[in-house]
């Protein structure tokens, strides 16, 4: 009896002492009824919007990481138990039960969370939550949005709120409000705005015409941004082509060596990136940076070995070089199959390269592509400087233009050949690292690019680095613009035919090297 009393008292104390506080208010979350949980969430949000703990709680609930015991609520993630303040607790996790949620509840939580986030100190969070609100608009969101508008200082977040407000007014306002809102919506881009306008257009009446006008305006700006997006995709593919073709522009364009194993040099680079991640699994964030110089070195060394062992003996016999290097490419592919596996491997993308740069709701540029574009142009500049400004570049040009004369002037032609070929191969290796961020790494990685890169070099004009740049970018762009119309495979076929026809017209490419014919 005493015991019962004791428990009852404790319970009473527990509930009483926390009557007016957070810990008690969240108790109903342990109940089975989802409706009750929902009501609790609503109540909590209205009451504790400033409380950090609520945020953690809702977040954990949403992710299914919120657990409870008779005494407390905890977050249980990756076998670690923390309280709502993020402090680590030593608890036996077996005593905890999960707070169950269903779809409806999660959507309510998501909504409420974004409302909370609207007033976060972090602009990023406010931005995300504003977007979230916009896509889950309800009639009673208006006061919230108006409150947020007053509070908001950042213009891009403000824009989203204005858009949300306009959408709501267009849907629920009086006629005058609707009229103004419908007109205003023409300046926005989001699919939500478009949807509201379409509904109003379908209703007919005076507003219908205004809505059509705004729809036209939205669609024209959306198609403009999708055009920009296509350009971006084209640029991204072009920069991959550029990376792939740049090494070739040196070995084929400058040295006139046709290296069919060029793609395999890229493959080796990609596998270098993969290997580094295998060796240092904890350094995913930086391994890619480490992989770039290493891939250059590894592929470069392979290049030097190939040059010294095989290509050296075949200068001036391009068709034989083609065959021998093709054999090398088979050997290298098989080597990789033996060492690693015939299967494709995945190279992790570091945090800083994932995600996208959002310009507006119609245009988002993914970071990995963005970085690869920048990287490609940096490598291009590097190669340009190396060939045009460095003393090595001078010697390389001397050797390729007149071997005998260069030899007579004391240039070690064999050494220059090996180094040049090594650099060309090394650049291919670097390209492979970049590729590993876009696709899986496998023994056939290089093959997919060899024909393309030759096309780029030939299209741009052999021996002309600027030609390679323009060739790569324009082929990338053409490809991305045909793709939506014709499909990826057909686009490729069309481009190959285009280049074949182009070479008929201009056998020496876009930017031929001029001079007296031999």
């Amino acid at each position: 009896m005493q015991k019962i009393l004791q428990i009852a008292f404790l319970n009473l104390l527990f509930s009483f002492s926390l009557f007016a506080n957070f810990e008690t208010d969240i108790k109903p979350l342990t109940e089975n009824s989802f409706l009750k949980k929902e009501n609790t969430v609503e109540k909590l949000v209205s009451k504790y919007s400033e409380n950090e703990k609520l945020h953690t709680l809702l977040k954990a609930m949403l992710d299914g990481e919120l657990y409870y015991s008779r005494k407390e609520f905890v977050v249980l993630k990756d076998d670690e138990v923390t309280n709502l303040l993020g402090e680590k607790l030593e608890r036996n996790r077996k005593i905890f039960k999960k707070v169950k949620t269903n779809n409806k509840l999660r959507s309510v939580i998501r909504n409420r969370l974004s409302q909370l986030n609207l007033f976060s100190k972090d602009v990023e969070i406010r931005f995300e939550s504003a977007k979230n609100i916009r896509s889950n608009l309800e009639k009673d969101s208006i006061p919230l949005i108006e409150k947020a508008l007053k509070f908001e200082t950042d213009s891009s977040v403000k824009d989203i709120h204005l858009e949300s407000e306009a959408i709501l007014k267009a849907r629920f306002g009086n006629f005058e409000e609707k009229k103004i809102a419908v007109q205003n919506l023409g300046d926005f881009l989001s699919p939500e705005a478009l949807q509201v306008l379409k509904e109003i257009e379908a209703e007919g009446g005076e507003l219908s015409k205004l809505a059509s006008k705004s729809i036209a305006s939205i669609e024209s700006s959306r198609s403009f941004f999708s055009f920009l997006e296509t350009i971006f995709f084209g640029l991204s593919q072009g920069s991959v082509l550029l990376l792939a073709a740049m090494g070739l522009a040196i070995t084929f364009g400058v040295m006139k060596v046709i290296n069919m194993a060029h793609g395999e040099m890229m493959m080796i680079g990609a596998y270098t990136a993969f290997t580094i991640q295998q060796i240092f699994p904890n350094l995913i964030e930086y391994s890619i940076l480490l992989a770039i110089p290493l891939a250059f070195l590894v592929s470069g060394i392979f290049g030097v070995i190939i040059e010294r062992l095989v290509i050296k003996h075949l200068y001036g016999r391009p068709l034989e070089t083609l065959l021998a290097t093709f054999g090398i490419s088979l050997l290298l592919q098989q080597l990789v199959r033996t060492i690693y596996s015939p299967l494709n491997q995945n190279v992790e993308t570091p945090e800083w390269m994932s995600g996208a740069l959002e310009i507006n709701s119609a245009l988002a540029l993914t970071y990995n592509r963005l970085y690869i574009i920048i990287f490609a142009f940096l490598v291009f500049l590097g190669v340009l400087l190396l060939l045009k400004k460095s003393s090595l570049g001078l010697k390389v040009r001397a050797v390729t233009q007149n071997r005998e004369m260069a030899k007579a002037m004391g240039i070690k032609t064999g050494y220059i050949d090996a180094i040049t070929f090594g650099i060309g191969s090394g650049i291919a290796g670097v390209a492979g690292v970049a590729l590993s961020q876009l696709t899986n790494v496998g023994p056939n990685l290089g093959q997919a690019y060899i024909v393309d890169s030759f096309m780029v070099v030939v299209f741009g004009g052999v021996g002309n680095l600027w030609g390679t740049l323009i060739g790569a970018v324009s082929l990338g762009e053409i490809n991305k613009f045909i793709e939506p119309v014709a499909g990826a495979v057909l686009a490729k076929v069309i481009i190959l035919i285009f280049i074949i026809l182009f070479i008929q017209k201009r056998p020496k490419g876009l930017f031929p090297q001029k001079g007296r014919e031999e």
Partner: protein
Amino acid sequence: MKRKPMILKIFENDRGGQIVLGVLAVVVLYVTFANLLFSEGSFLHISTYTVTLLGKYLAFALLALSLDLVWGYLGILSLGHGAFFALGGYAWAMYLMLQIGDRGVYGNAELPDFMVFMNLQELPWFWYGFEYPLFAFFMAMFVPGLLAFVFGWFAFKSRVTGVYLSIMTQALTYALMLAFFRNDMGFGGNNGLTDFKDILGFSLQDDGTRVLLLILSFLALVLGYLISRYIINSRLGRVAMAIRDGESRVRFLGYRVESFKLFIFVVSAVMAGVAGALYVPQVGIINPNLFSPLFSIELVIWVAIGGRGTLYGAIIGAFIVNYASTYFTSALPEVWLYALGGLFVVVTLYLPKGIVGIVKKEKNVTAVS
């Protein structure tokens, strides 16, 4: 002076050709009799599998021969000859497909299985006429010939030569491969065409049919050889070799180089097409992998290993490499790709004239001593 029959005249001064074709004739005859006359249990019996394998090698030999014609004598290293072979194969496979009738899995008498699977209601227009063997066989020669003509017309007119031309031929077959891998091209996508039943009314499962195909392949090879040798022996052949050795000089002698190239290129493509048509019924399947650049470049190594610019060297090379390939891919599949890769390097570095080159050298050495 008594005029010699043309066939003897063609073989004049061609010991290599006489020997190689002679040996092949003996082998084909032996295999034929050993397969048909002796029953399965017999010690002297040769299995139908071997018959078919030999037939496949003969088709490949004809393909290699066609490549040697353009590479060895005209100096055009085609990295897309597999495309002509595959097109010829597809044309004939379309005929074989339509012979299946209602014996397919879906039992549709009008449409091949894969079209039923694709929910097609009727035969696509480009399949019209392929139920007639003569038409199909004509197409097996015409389509590769036409492709070679159109491609060559553009390429030779604009004087694309050497490595550029090679890369373009590779791009050509690569583009075709991508196209044929698409299901909606109407050629069965990556599964290709297969499950053939009959050819000209004979069952493909029959030993007799197999042997007949073997003999036909051999005769086609001999005919291809004679035509090639005749061309090479003619002044046109000498002009071709002159083009190989100094293209621009030939122009100043008044020869229109493009026409010569085009002629030989088209003849070669037609031969490759016929080879493809012979290959398909014996192997029983055709798929877009024959368009892959790898296959085309592999056949270059057949010719290189045998010895290019000799015609019979191409035949020898095709037999040796394919025999090795058959042996290794079943016994040591890992090793084969290493060996193939190594072959490319070794042959170009140390055996520029191939096996024929070694034999000739040996003979010269013994003749001197």
